[in-house]
């Protein structure tokens, strides 16, 4: 794993990591991936992936209105709110 890989991942994860963090994480993540290579020896071609332990699928409930969280209480916990909504900085003009 190179510093450029780590920088790309940080951007994908929306983390403005510092140069010092980038350097340290590159060493640490590279070391981990080296350790994780132990599974490369396994023949997994015929093995089905397992995403969850308990076989529940499509858990639905009747489409009936239920009590829900109080809007004022939820908005009161937000960093910024206005007119019953969350307020955020401008979203156009992004430098992606």
């Amino acid at each position, binding site marked *: 794993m190179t510093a450029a890989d780590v920088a790309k991942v940080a951007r994908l994860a929306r983390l403005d990591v510092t140069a010092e963090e980038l350097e340290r994480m590159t060493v640490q993540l590279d070391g*981990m991936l080296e350790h994780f290579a132990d*599974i490369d020896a396994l023949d997994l071609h015929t093995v089905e992936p397992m995403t969850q332990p308990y076989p529940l699928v499509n858990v639905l409930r009747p489409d009936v209105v239920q009590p829900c969280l109080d809007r004022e209480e*939820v908005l009161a916990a937000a960093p910024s709110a206005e007119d019953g909504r969350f307020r955020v900085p401008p979203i156009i003009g992004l430098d992606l």
Partner: protein
Amino acid sequence: MGIAETVAQVKSGAVKADFLFEQKLALIASRYTEIHAFNHVMADEARAAAVAVDEAVARGDDPGPLAGVTVALKDNMCTRGVPTTCSSKILEGWRPPYDGTVVSTLKTSGAIAIGKTNLDEFAMGSSTENSAFGPTRNPLDTNRVPGGSSGGSAASVAAGFSDVALGSDTGGSIRQPAALCGVVGVKPTYGYVSRYGLVAFASSLDQIGPFTTSVADAALMLDVIGGHDPLDSTSIPQAHPSLVDVLGQGVEGLRIGRITDLPEGADPDVQERLEVAFDALRAQGATIVDVQVPAFTFGLTAYYLIAPAEASSNLARYDGVRYGLRVEAADTNAMYGATREAGFGDEVKRRIMLGTYALSAGYYDAYYGKALKVRRLIHDDFDRAYQQADVLLTPTSPSVAFEIGSKGDNPLAMYLCDTYTIPTNLAGHPGMSVPYGTGAHGLPVGVQVLAGTLQEPTMFRVAASLERSLA
């Protein structure tokens, strides 16, 4: 005194819940900064709850199955109007607008929620050193860690700050600190206890369970908090048989499995206590059988790809919009990056990065996809082992409690603390740690009892028998 006895005394009016609570509060105050088990003590709410229990008793009403029992809650469980931080700066000051299901269940059961306990930030760690608010110390030796990530909950029970506590276990975060603090800790089957209101770390692995000073207390706690919850779509849609009822059944005729290809690394003192445990169960009429779980050894790798991958997705919600910290910036994207950089600690960032990488285009198959297949191998190997044995016995932690700071800056050294606990989470099975005597420096050693899906009754029979063998 067990909690069943406490409940009986409170219900009869022989002891006031308020009196028991004030005793606990005084004890917490006497060692508050020394141990740092709590991020927040709910003194006012707890006092009101205790008084309400006493009033119910005075009126002749049933105050509930946990009347007067003091409970400490890991600070990743939502408590309405009470700070819930996950020991992270990104949630500092946040007061949830709702109670998690376990919290509301405890309240209606007459339990007294006494405070929110410290943890490794977002439950990522094995020592409770990764808290943004400073480490928790082991009450048995304050130079040492209590284990983690539910270290505050384990310390609370070990120090007697609360009768019991709740934690969450994603890769060992209940069982390992229970072992290091000399208390009982249970991770039930995935889906046994509702996770509604538990802040998500790795959703296919997380499970809530109790810390207690006895196996009987743990059984009673699970009998109350277990069961289906429509608010958690991963909750198993059936009632669970009482665990309290099976405690006296013994182990006569049960097959106890010894995993012959278990990864090495357990210290000799830990290994010795495990052998004593096998002998004790044999003496009580169980048969010891050798089994193999070849994929056990690959658990660590599978876990450290799957759990960070799920975490990277779950923790995307901390973006400075709906709750918690916001660092202002010119546009939303800059705000996200600055907020998350400022709000998350080192270990959380490391795992978000690892998980993002394992899921990213070009690496998904090589890392995350492969880890899911290894997870299947582990699950199937356990299934084969459980055809030969009713439960498996292993060490909980490779060592007794280690000194604060001793794992240094090497994340892998810390990850290895969970070698014996992680595979259970991947399989979705129950596991529990039972304190079983002492090892090096006179510190407690835990023995881990593992069982197949929903085999809690058998697991508890074995745990209760182990406990009796020490008496």
